[in-house]
């Protein structure tokens, strides 16, 4: 820890010059620890380049650096967390990198509850995943390269999280996108993988249009890219901002939809499975998909305050609800274990988004927090299974319980946590979200119709509970198909090496106990954590459990597990019964993911890449160039014409006159008429004409 000691003392002094003084009186400025937090984004970025360029020469070919970096992040995150809980920190540091007109452009770092929570999650979860990756990626063709881009991935996320202004956020945002593109397309020899990577990138890029526009509107109407300035403007109710707030909020939310895989921009996430499993783990748990949630949370006052973007919340809650329900259903029919998890992630993200829509800031972030642990755990577990059986399909698995005990135990913990079984982490967070829906549906919350309205909130509550059932159901299915019954695959599966299952255990602990950070009426650590911001977020804070919701939620989960057991537990049900589960009409719909992918591909991408592009190209060659070349050819044609006239005009004249007087003989004669007198004739003719002109002019 000498490093940190050094950080907390020297670095701030070093930086005092470069940074302009941020910090806020009522909240602590976090001292050197916060002042030095610029290391959090910077270290991994630098590390990524170091690994890419020199990683091969290190003892563990880059893994060592990467993991060390994540270790550093985890530790730093933890320290900040502790410091924050000791005394809330709200610190902002910035370096001006340019000034355009009157606009300052800055790199900076923000240290407050929200970002600290993210630092912590990214650091800790990331650390475990990197640890695990050593075993998983062993013998990969591009081992070093993988860790380089993986570090870039995490680094990008940290840049995003540490951003005090929209510009830097966008930078991090896109860095994450690029890193994901690299990682998803890690095995680019296979066309499908690179296509999946491009799909992810482009889908996000589409959403980024929204983010760009939103950022532009906010920045221009406030006069600064800084979140703090924007949110202060919201506090003070600056009219210039209020005027455009709705559109800005909507645009920003569209951006968030992309990264956080909200319906209908969720299509890229399942395909992102093409990447190595650790990538999926990190992507679904801590980085990338959480970015959207984080962004909305970061700008939450904008969405919360009347007269600003509060009406966007109706959109947010609807989108969230659709996502959490529809994507959950798809998970029911997936055979690829990773895809099951992927769709479950989408569904959980739906919960978070919907919660934000309902105004439940804390609940949403809390679910993000817990979800990070158990989803990472589940993915890594699935990874170790896949590692063992060399297949993603659950139909090739079964009975792995006895071959890989650690994997089994941890996976079950994760599954239960996801299903929301008390007292695991998932229970508390999901319960808070459902409770927040109920609160929003109740009278005392001023959840106006424009913002969504009570009725909507109640519908979403129902959907949420239904989705809880669905979640439990498909997780049960996954567990039973994978770990129970007879092994249906080939070869001899075996437990993964320690370097892989130790992280599982670590994450399992997190999944088990993270929930206790925020037990309504008991502990409020998390509330204080994320509440500690320069601009406070005033969201409803439940004093105690909402019994109704607790009962319904638990019931739904247990019911789901029970049904899962009835249908999927080996020998519990005949194939016929399982087939009956393949409801006609609904099943193919789910199988084909509501045909959305096909719609995008056949309806948009293919036309643009095909006929439209070809058409434009044709236009270029055949219309514009036609004019250009046409002019050229015209000039030459004209030249030919004029030349012909120049050389034969008089012949023509005389021949014409000769034609009627002399007939053929005459004509033949003309053909070799001397040119001199033709010229002379032309001259005389020209002269006579000019003179005639003069005379006529004189007469007039």
């Amino acid at each position, binding site marked *: 820890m000498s490093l940190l000691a050094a950080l907390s003392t020297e670095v701030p002094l070093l930086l005092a010059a470069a940074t302009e003084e941020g910090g806020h009186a009522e909240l602590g400025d976090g001292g050197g620890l916060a002042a030095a937090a610029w290391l959090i984004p910077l270290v991994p970025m630098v590390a990524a380049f170091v690994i890419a360029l020199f990683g091969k020469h290190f003892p563990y070919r880059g893994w060592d650096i990467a993991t060390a970096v994540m270790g550093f992040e985890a530790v730093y995150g933890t320290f900040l967390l502790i410091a924050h809980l000791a005394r809330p920190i709200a610190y902002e540091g910035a370096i001006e990198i340019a000034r355009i007109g009157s606009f300052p452009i800055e790199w900076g770092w923000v240290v407050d509850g929200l970002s600290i929570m993210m630092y912590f999650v990214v650091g800790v979860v990331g650390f475990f995943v990197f640890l695990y990756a050593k075993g998983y990626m062993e013998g990969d063709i591009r081992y070093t390269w993988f860790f380089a881009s993986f570090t870039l991935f995490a680094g990008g996320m940290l840049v995003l999280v540490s951003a005090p202004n929209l510009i830097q956020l966008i930078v991090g945002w896109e860095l994450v996108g690029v890193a994901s593109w690299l990682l998803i397309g890690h095995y680019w020899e296979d066309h499908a993988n690179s296509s999946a990577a491009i799909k992810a990138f482009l889908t996000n890029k589409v959403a980024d249009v929204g983010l760009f526009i939103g950022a532009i509107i906010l920045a221009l109407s406030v006069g600064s890219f800084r979140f703090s300035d924007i949110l202060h403007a919201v506090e003070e109710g600056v009219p210039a901002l209020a005027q455009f707030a709705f559109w800005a909020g909507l645009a920003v939310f569209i951006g968030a939809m992309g990264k956080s895989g909200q319906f209908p921009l969720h299509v890229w996430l399942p395909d992102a499975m093409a990447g190595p499993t650790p990538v999926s783990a990190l992507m679904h748990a801590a980085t990338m998909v959480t970015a959207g949630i984080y962004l909305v949370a970061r700008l939450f006052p904008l969405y919360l305050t009347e007269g600003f973007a509060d009406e966007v919340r109706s959109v947010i809650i609807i989108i969230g609800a659709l996502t959490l329900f529809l994507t959950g259903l798809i998970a029911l029919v997936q055979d690829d274990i990773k895809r099951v998890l992927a769709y479950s992630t989408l569904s959980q993200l739906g919960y978070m988004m919907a919660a934000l829509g309902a105004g439940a800031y804390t609940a949403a972030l809390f679910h993000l927090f817990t979800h990070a642990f158990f989803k990472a755990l589940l993915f890594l577990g699935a990874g170790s299974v896949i590692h063992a059986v060399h297949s993603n399909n659950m139909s090739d698995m079964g009975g792995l319980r006895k071959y890989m005990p650690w994997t089994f135990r941890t996976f079950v913990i994760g599954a239960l946590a996801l299903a929301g079984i008390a007292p695991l982490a998932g229970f508390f967070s999901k319960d808070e979200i459902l409770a927040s829906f109920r609160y929003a549906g109740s009278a005392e919350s001023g959840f106006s119709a424009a913002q969504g309205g009570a009725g909507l909130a109640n519908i979403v509550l129902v959907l949420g509970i239904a989705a809880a059932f669905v979640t439990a159901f498909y997780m049960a299915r996954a567990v039973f198909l994978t770990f129970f019954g007879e092994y249906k695959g080939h070869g001899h599966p075996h437990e993964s090496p320690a370097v892989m299952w130790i992280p599982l255990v670590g994450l399992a602990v997190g999944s088990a106990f993270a929930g206790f950070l925020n037990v309504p009426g008991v502990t409020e650590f998390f509330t204080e954590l994320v509440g500690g911001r320069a601009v406070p977020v005033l969201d409803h804070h439940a004093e105690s459990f909402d019994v109704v919701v607790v009962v319904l939620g638990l019931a739904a989960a247990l019911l789901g597990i029970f049904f899962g057991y009835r249908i999927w537990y080996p020998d519990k049900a005949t194939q016929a019964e399982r087939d009956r589960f393949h409801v006609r009409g609904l099943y193919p719909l789910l199988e084909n993911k509501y045909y959305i992918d096909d719609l995008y591909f056949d309806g948009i991408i293919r036309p643009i890449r095909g006929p439209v592009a070809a058409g434009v190209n044709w236009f270029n060659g055949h219309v514009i160039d036609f004019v250009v070349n046409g002019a050229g050819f015209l000039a030459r044609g004209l030249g030919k014409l004029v030349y012909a006239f120049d050389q034969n005009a008089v012949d023509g004249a005389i021949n014409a006159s000769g034609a009627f007087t002399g007939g053929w003989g005459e004509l033949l004669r003309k053909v*070799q008429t001397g040119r001199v007198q033709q010229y002379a004739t032309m001259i005389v003719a020209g002269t006579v004409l000019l003179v005639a002109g003069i005379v006529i002019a004189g007469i007039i």
Partner: protein
Amino acid sequence: MLINGFLLLGAALFSLGVYGLLVRRNAVLILLSVELMVAAVNINFVALDRFLGDDLAGGQVFALFSIAVAAAEVGIGLAIILLVFRNRQSANVDELDLMRL
């Protein structure tokens, strides 16, 4: 004496010369036509000189010079005609079409 009488005579002879220059096939005859035109111009000059009573006698002097120049031209012209004739045994200009394109 009407000045126009002389001028019209000059114009007439000039036009005749133009006509000849256009219709004659034989180079020598073309040259003759040119001589005719010059003669016409000279009539103009001298008549006008007298009409204006130019004490610098500009018209007469001009006539003198044009006569001299015309003589020179005839010399040059005949030389060229001889040259052409020697190469193609004919002084008919309408057989000159080497550079017809």
